[in-house]
């Protein structure tokens, strides 16, 4: 398992002769990931993370870093624990009866599972977008305004809603029908509405669990473009089954797999974590290579 330090990450200042120079031959790696100044460091990290559902160990020993204002992709075969890891990052796993987290998950150095940490506050800073678009059965406006309303940020609500909808590249499509029910939107619009809803509370980190898997290629490409925009302001962690998507949008990629343990239970394990470029061009682990080249999973 390779666990890169943050300075190894792709950046315009990478010295010549690194893998980055040979990029773009097989895959347009990092195509849409905008060139940016060096990341300010890790926004979040996991240390020695183990997650149990009851007695079942779902994920073992995950060490990851999520660099500030960067996109990190989590990939791997079904059931390897990508969603599980993602849900630990904003304590959504607290809602699963019997789920238990060991190890540390830090947000700018603070353990979010530490004593005195309020999981509500955690979720306000670390927003989430789900696999299936899940707008509320309310108007478009009320969907976006929901977060600010429950968090008590009710001043300038109209501005907040407009900004969030612009941020999610949805404003022009819905500005004349803000009072209409969100269920009238197309799937891709609904997903962008969910992104608007998530960014309306101005979180720091955006977690996305297969945000495009229910969408057609055009809607998918809109969301991918959008991620390129959003990463200016947010740290993004995305789970995806689409290898091209991971290659296109992310700066770093973590590859997980489910390894049978000594009892034969399949336990999610982090195989390799590195710059996306490295993972796709020159993976260190045979399992990563097999998966990426489609020989597995």
């Amino acid at each position: 398992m390779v666990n890169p330090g943050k300075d190894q990450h792709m950046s315009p200042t990478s010295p010549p002769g690194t893998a980055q120079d040979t990029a773009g031959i097989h895959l347009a790696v990092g195509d849409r990931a905008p060139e940016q100044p060096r990341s300010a460091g890790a926004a979040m990290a996991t240390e020695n993370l183990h997650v149990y559902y009851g007695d079942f160990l779902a994920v073992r020993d995950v060490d990851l870093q999520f660099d500030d204002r960067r996109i990190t992709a989590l990939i791997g075969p079904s059931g390897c624990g990508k969603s599980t890891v993602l849900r630990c990052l904003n304590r959504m796993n607290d809602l699963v009866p019997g789920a238990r987290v060991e190890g540390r998950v830090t947000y700018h150095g603070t353990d979010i599972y530490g004593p005195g940490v309020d999981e509500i506050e955690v979720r306000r800073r670390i927003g989430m977008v789900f696999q299936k678009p899940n707008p509320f059965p309310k108007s478009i406006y009320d969907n976006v305004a929901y977060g600010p309303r429950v968090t008590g940020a009710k001043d300038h609500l109209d501005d907040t809603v407009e900004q969030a909808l612009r941020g999610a590249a949805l404003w022009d499509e819905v500005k004349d029908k803000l009072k209409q029910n969100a269920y009238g939107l197309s799937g891709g619009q609904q997903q962008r509405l969910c992104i608007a809803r998530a960014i309306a509370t101005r979180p720091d980190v955006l977690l996305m669990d297969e945000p495009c898997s229910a969408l057609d290629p055009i809607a998918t490409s809109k969301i991918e473009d959008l991620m390129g925009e959003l990463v200016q302001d947010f740290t993004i962690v995305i789970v995806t089954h689409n290898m091209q998507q991971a290659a296109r949008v992310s700066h770093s990629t973590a590859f997980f797999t489910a390894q049978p343990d000594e009892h034969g239970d399949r336990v999610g394990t982090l195989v390799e974590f590195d710059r996306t470029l490295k993972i796709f061009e020159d993976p260190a682990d045979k399992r990563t290579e097999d998966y990426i080249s489609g020989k597995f999973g």
Partner: protein
Amino acid sequence: MTATDTARTTPARALTPDRRRRDVASTVFVSVLWACLLVAALFLFYVLITIVVSGVSRLDANLITQAPSTIRPATAGVQPAIVGTLLVVGVTALIALPLGIAAAIYLEEYADPRRWFNRAIELNVQNLAAVPSIIFGILVLAFVVRAPLNFGAVALSGSIALALLILPVVIIATRESLRAVPREIRDGSLAVGATRWQTVWRQLLPAAVPGIATGSILALSRAVGEAAPLILVGATTFITFTPDGLFSRYTVMPVQIFNFALQSREAFIPLTYAAILLLIVILLALNGTAIVLRNRFARRW
């Protein structure tokens, strides 16, 4: 017929097999279903027609404006029982709905199902829904009508008995409506930093209201038609005045009907049927409202 012909016609034949056997079986089956339906419907119509025919002569203004009277049954009515029913069932709703909805929210959203006492409560609620209504009457007679509460045979005692009776129904209906709200709505709300309570109050309850309303109205209509527990807690007396409060003596429609039916004089017969007809109309109106609510507001996720 050549080999090529066979090859061509066989797949087509498969689509037009001998259907007679299958047709007979399904005709028989459908006929049996129709017969069952017919028996049920005929019986219902017979009862309804008997009631209408026997009671129509007393379907007049006196029925709803006059009090029962043993002296002038021909012009007597059931006004105190109508008021009593409204009062008792209204108070029943005030007791049972908040309690039942709150209990359902706790069980569905807060209770950890792995805790033994939550499982015990759950089992209890399920079983209470199946307890005969008269048992609730006995309970209230023992603890509310008599010591320790000692309310006596007053309207409030009747409401408490009916509230206990329909509480499990309200709880179960509310839980089912809450459970029907998709997980994604909960997750979406919590993920933007809403508290559990905000999620319940702003997402789950509004989405569940049609289901809760439907279940509650059906439960209340059951309460409207109940006689057994109320007879036990003292709604039996032949009341000739309008109840004027929670601690007033009272009677309700089903008990009043029961009383009329006990009278031996001829003039009470049409009065009894007319009162039954009135009760049926009230119940149909309640159930109709529930159906309209369900069709109108039921959400398909």
